[in-house]
């Protein structure tokens, strides 16, 4: 049995198609994944959801089995210091927020790194205005995660054989931005974070969706389109949720064959 295109050749699939079309009219409140933005503001709490990612959510839902909400939730830094962890296993943050984590208080950076050690996943984005101390910030974050641990955390450029390249779509490279590459943060033989060299989650918001080529041209001096960035996002969600599943021996031969 094959659970993709050829599935639609039989009558069962036609019924499925009808179900999906029907389900499109319903509003969902229990999606299993949504974007949690780590906000450097001082409010001690979590904001209500705001609808920002309808296009992205549709892309995920229509292509994968993941139920992703179109909502964005703000999780404020002081909440981490209480400590209280996000409802989701990941957070999206920019460089400024990371600098706040590392410089504001030791308890905040301690709880944040503890959360990453315990299984959290960080999506780190470059700010619109470049932070000149980005490299040292990233290294400091890696050091903080490794603090009092025999296992070292380290950033490295995404190698072509990394699960991020293969977790759903087969990519051969990710777009760089002014010679800055995508990176992954690895700790304890797993990926605990991804660094994007441009503010892609801002670009993927519904209001910017159609302007991505223009925005990317201006910031990165090369044109990208939202569909392509959403495919990278799909791979990242898969990497976060399934870890290195695609590196299992049972998958590798087939993947390598296709890559050839």
């Amino acid at each position, binding site marked *: 049995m*094959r659970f993709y295109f050829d599935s639609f050749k039989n009558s069962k699939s036609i*019924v499925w198609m009808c179900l999906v079309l029907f389900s499109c009219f319903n509003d969902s409140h*229990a999606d299993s994944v949504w974007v949690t933005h780590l906000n450097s503001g001082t409010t001690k709490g979590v904001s209500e959801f705001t609808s920002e990612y309808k296009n992205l959510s549709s892309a995920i839902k229509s292509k994968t089995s993941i139920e992703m909400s179109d909502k964005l939730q703000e999780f404020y830094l002081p909440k981490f210091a209480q400590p209280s962890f996000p409802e989701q296993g990941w957070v999206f943050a920019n460089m400024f927020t990371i600098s706040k984590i590392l410089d504001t208080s030791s308890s905040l950076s301690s709880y944040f790194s503890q959360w990453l050690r315990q299984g959290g996943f960080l999506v780190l984005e470059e700010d619109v205005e470049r932070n000149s101390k980005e490299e040292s910030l990233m290294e400091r974050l890696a050091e903080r995660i490794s603090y009092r641990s025999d296992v070292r955390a380290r950033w490295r450029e995404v190698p072509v054989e990394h699960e991020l390249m293969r977790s759903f779509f087969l990519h051969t490279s990710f777009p760089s931005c002014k010679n800055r590459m995508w990176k992954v943060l690895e700790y304890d033989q797993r990926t605990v974070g991804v660094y994007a060299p441009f503010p892609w989650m801002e670009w993927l918001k519904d209001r910017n969706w159609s302007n991505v080529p223009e925005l990317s041209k201006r910031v990165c001096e090369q044109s990208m389109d939202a569909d392509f960035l959403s495919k990278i996002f799909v791979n990242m969600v898969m990497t976060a949720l399934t870890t290195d599943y695609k590196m299992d021996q049972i998958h590798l031969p087939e993947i390598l064959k296709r890559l050839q």
Partner: protein
Amino acid sequence: MLHDYGFDNVWRMIFVFVFLLLFLVYGWILSRREKFWWAWLTAALRLMWIAPLLFLMWPKKIGIGIDQPLRSRNLYILLDDSRSMQLSGALEKAQSKIEILKRSCEELACNVEIKKLSEFRNGVRTSDEEAPLDYTYMEESLAFWLAAKFENDPVLVFSDGGDHLSRNLDVKLDVITPKIREGASKLYLYLGSEKESNYAITNSRSLGLSFSNQKPSVEVSLQRSDDLIDTQRNLQIQIYAIRPDNSEQILVTQSFRFQKGERSVDVGLDLPVMTKGQYMLYARLLTPPEDRVVWDNHHAFMIKILPNTVGLLHLLGAPSWDGRFLRRYIKSEIKYDTVSFYILRDPTDLIPEKDRELSLIPFPVERLFTKELSRFKVLIMQNFALSYFLDQEEYRNNLVRFVKDGGGLLFIGGPRALLRHDVQNSSLKEILPFSEDQIRFTDSNEKASTRKDSAGGPFAGFGLGRMPYLNMHSSSAFSFMGSSWNSSLNFRLKVDDLDDSEQKRISFWAELQSLAPELEGVFPNSKNAWSGLQDVSFASTLPKVKEDFANEIDGTQMVQDPLNLIHAEIFDKKNSTVQEKRPFVMASFPGKGRALWILSDEIWKLANQTPELASRGLYTRFMQMVFQWLLKEDLRPALQWQTASLQLDSRSDLMGLRLELSGPAVLEFESNPKLWSWNICGKNFDSSQFKVDVDKAMESLVLEADVKTSIWPSSIKRKACSVAYEAQSPAFGNLKSEMLVGVQQSMSDEEFAGSEWNARSLAKKYGMEWINSRGISSGNLEEQLVTWIKGFMVGDKEFIKSPTERSLSYWDYFHWLNGYWLSWILFFMILEVVVQRRKWIFGARL
């Protein structure tokens, strides 16, 4: 350097305050008998000339000083004065360096305190007899010396790295080092001979664990001294074990090569398949003639052979956070051989991209559920739409048969699990811990039809005539198949009463306890084995059940007579009253097999429940218990050997014993050490005869002792003997283990001359900086030492604060009040004349 010790800010403020107070009081007194403005002017004029007099009490001081520490600093030196140091001339070299350091220290106002290695022997050894001079007790002395309180003073070791015992210095090095590295600045100066041809085994790496159906592998690291680097050399290495009759059993011999210019090399060796048990094995370099140091050609390591790996089949209905965390747990256990299939894409998904652009592979359901299923011991179904993906009745029947025949089933819920068809029409209902009547489906309202699909397929019972109400996950077509899952609810976990008189429940906990003795260590209350989960608050999806389901579960109405182990109390956030109870974790016993039902897809949140440094602490422990019960075996031994070493010092007739064990049973040691007994080479010991170190965080127990060899018969002087323990505790019952360990012999300085590798290992182990004198000219070496000591002293924070660095305060602008006080008194005294002659100056108006 100028030093200004005038007023500090506090005194200045006090002075200004007193001055103002005087002015106000005096002015007020005068104003009662003088005209108002004249009274205040008089007060001001008088105080102006009196004020400098008051300043005399706090004169400004200017002096010249030299920055120096507040307390006198010491430089502590340990000098290896062993025979090998004397013979090589290194001792003389060390003494000349010490003289230079003494001179530097005089300039820096520090004292040099020197200890010789020969002074330490009696302090370290338990024997009263003096050890012979030609034996170097390097590591023991160093450890003893470093244990002294040096505060933050620097310490320096001069040594050639010679030691009388060949040790496995790498044992637990990573654990020990961080503890020792904190504190004083330490330097190890290696003073080896210029030519020391040496090959050495520096380390061996194995997982420490292998399986009886696999060839264990080990990697041995070797290195050679600088004078040999320019040659290419073929050598041989052996791995051997020692039999009970003291003979050696060679397991493997392998050739390897040092290429020209290569200092170190790693050699991988595959050992033969071994039977279940724990083994102490030895790596041995077959000594080439040019190797002048032979003691470091051996290295011991331990390996445990377990029964076969455990096959797991993990089916995940859709990527989720719960899936991520479970995968991490499974991958972290070396014993699991896992085959995973995750449904990344639903049949309903529309992807314009071609298959070759995707990494997806088909789900091989036929192969798995007709041919391969019996290879696995546990099947994990996580948020899995069984009736759709196992679309043939045959597959579902095979799954049920697998469990009934003795397999384990871990069911983890989620919106795609427990669909109407799974519960009503599938053979799965034979092993479900509840009946279809006890579950409420999204389409199972009072008016819902119960018509069955005549085809018996996954859409059985589904029809547009009774479309379910859509309150959850509506974008998923699975909800149309009769989902039973609520949207997120807030609840507390409650571990069901362990004192329940029901025999089955008691036996369940007893068995879990026996399988997982660490539960006692993890949770202090012995009755409450899963108490770590007690009262944990959750927000998660749960299956919808009848309101009285939780009560029924304890009764006899259940289909499979399951055990409710943990239930969820759904509560009202406002007043915390319990609104409803629902099952959360259940166990059932279908046929010969076992099934555990976790009715939530957010159990991963346990990983963040406790502020532990340990990764995913509570979650991992919970899963360990789950799998131990499903597999009916103990995956994590309560107590196991980490290392055991017997080192015979034949000259002093002492046997150095070091036993290291790990496991949760260690946590019980301190409560009653008398219940732990030891047998070393046939002689019984009790725990009080050892120096004991318990590390609760690492769950490790280290016992050390130096014992007179006279307590053993002469046969002790053999290659190996047995080491055994027996431990008893109400928490874990009776544990015992025996192992054959090789006896290592001590070596004199003649046999064990200086060793760069040993010195380097000691420096690393005790967190010391490292300087190798070989290849450095005497002048450069002296310069390095002086720079090191100066750098340390200058870096000291406890210096007198230099006044030149003090920032200017407002008051500094008035320092002339101090410096020229006499002039100003004389100058302002004129004002008193003005006061006294005011009527003459200003006329009779005043």
